[in-house]
């Protein structure tokens, strides 16, 4: 997305999202996957529904609507004293690519763990090789073993953690985004080993700015759009809906698959 006018320009931070309007189709929340110093932002689209399908068919120069940046952002470390893991599944890699880029700019070392169903679903492989490899290494894993380790990202991370000595554990930070089941497993691992943990949650939303209430998390009434989408372990621990429930467009609570 190119920024055509420079007034009132706000630089997005890794973890923030935008509401993307495809005229005539829908408006949906999407993570920002990058930005440069000239006011250009990036989103990364996977064709999973009506709106993303319409996005994939857009041509250069077509109009879309953008509201944002919205929500909070990943709390970044300021130096290399921590061992940083960035763990993502599928399209959840989008905001993590932005995070990895930012950390690379800051010359902060980190390890990426990227999981997907199949090797064809792995994202940003070339980008990570070219753009962030000076400060990061990537562990790939796939459900079917077609690339990297066979297994899910949380499993790969647990293997890594189990090899670490106890005194290293408090020195770890995990940033994650992806299917909520994966986030919940990572949360459990981080709780067990007392590791600092951040997860980016996703919910259905209309407004993206704290009004409609569809993204409310019980029982604290936290809003994914405004208090999140990034939550730390301390907060996640109190969110009963985490890993279990979301609300549909009617506002009805439904289970998370």
């Amino acid at each position, binding site marked *: 997305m190119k920024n055509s006018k420079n007034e009132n320009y706000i630089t997005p931070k890794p973890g923030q999202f935008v*509401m993307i*309007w495809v*005229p*005539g189709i*829908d*408006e*949906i929340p999407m993570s920002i996957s990058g930005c440069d110093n000239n006011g250009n932002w990036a989103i990364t689209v996977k064709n999973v529904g009506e709106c993303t399908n319409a996005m994939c068919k857009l041509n250069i120069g077509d*109009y879309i*609507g953008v*509201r944002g940046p919205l929500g909070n952002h990943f709390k970044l470390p300021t130096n290399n004293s921590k061992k940083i893991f960035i763990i993502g599944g599928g399209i959840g890699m989008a905001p993590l690519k932005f995070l990895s880029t930012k950390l690379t700019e800051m010359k902060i070392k980190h390890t990426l763990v990227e999981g997907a169903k199949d090797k064809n679903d792995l994202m940003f492989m070339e980008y990570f090789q070219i753009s962030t490899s000076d400060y990061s290494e990537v562990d790939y894993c796939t459900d079917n073993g077609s690339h990297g380790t066979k297994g899910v990202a949380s499993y790969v991370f647990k293997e890594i953690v189990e090899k670490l000595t106890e005194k290293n554990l408090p020195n770890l930070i995990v940033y994650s985004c992806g299917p909520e089941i994966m986030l919940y497993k990572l949360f459990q691992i981080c709780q067990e080993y007392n590791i600092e943990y951040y997860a980016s949650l996703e919910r259905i939303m*209309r*407004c993206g*700015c*704290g*009004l*409609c*209430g*569809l993204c*409310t*998390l*019980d*029982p*604290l*009434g936290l*809003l994914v759009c*405004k208090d999140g989408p990034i939550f730390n372990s301390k907060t996640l621990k109190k969110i009963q809906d985490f890993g279990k429930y979301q*609300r*549909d*467009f*009617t*506002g*009805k609570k439904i289970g998370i698959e």
Partner: protein
Amino acid sequence: MLEVNLSGLKLKSPIILASGILGVSFSSMKRVIDAGAGAVTTKSIGPKPRKGYKNPSIIEISPGTFMNSIGLGNPGISEFISEIKEIKKHNIPLIVSVFGDTNEVYLDIAIKAENTGADAIEINISCPHAEVSSIGTDKDLTYEIVKFLKAKLSIPLFVKLNPNVTDIGEIALAAQKGGANGVVAINTFSALKIDVNTKRPILSHGSGGLSGKAIHPIAVKKVFDLYKVLKIPIIGCGGIDSWQDVIEFFLAGASAVQIGTALYKGTEIIKEINDEITQYLKNNEYTSINDIKGLAHQFKTQEVPDFN
């Protein structure tokens, strides 16, 4: 100092959460109460689950002014009963907003809400972008539904007024005649936002309801006019975003107010407004917010001059 008695509802603050904002889950409503609100109004609840319109359904069109056309998306009363129960577990003063397509449907939902512990019912007969708006634009239909519901309900009934009418006063008087315990003035204004690049209305439904900063002076005028003719309490609603906005509503004649759109700034704004109203009352040596109700009416305004 901020306590008000609204038709029997004893509220610790005159600021009530308006319908349609954060009113889906008990937890978000509890958060609004914890932030200092005196009561909460739920999202308008209908007879069955309803998705509402697709996005874009809420957009900000200038700072603090929004347009929405949710289209009464709601989980339906059966599903919502559990949220009402949960709210009442926390002893939160609760107004359940109700909509339907017939008077009987309104009644069925209102009775279920009352039996589950709702403290009052607000009827939405004024949504500017859904089919139920027709009742609120007709004084006879308004009178009939209010009378019909009042005959069966024990808890107070508030009527949310549609400002998109020629004479809001006659609708309000019809509600009063039917036995309403108060009116909420006002719902959103019917409006349209067109994107100049794609040349199409932005909201998926086309038109929507205008809320927030831009409508506050209009809402104050409606409350001011209604105060002259009504005996029942007026709940001022429309564009509250600061303590002055609340005071203005009271000076115009409101007995309580509702806040909605401004919560995009965060629920903490309610506490700030409460504190600042208290300070205003102290500075002006009032002991209660009720003491300033309607004070703007004491001044003579200039008459229309003769043309010759």
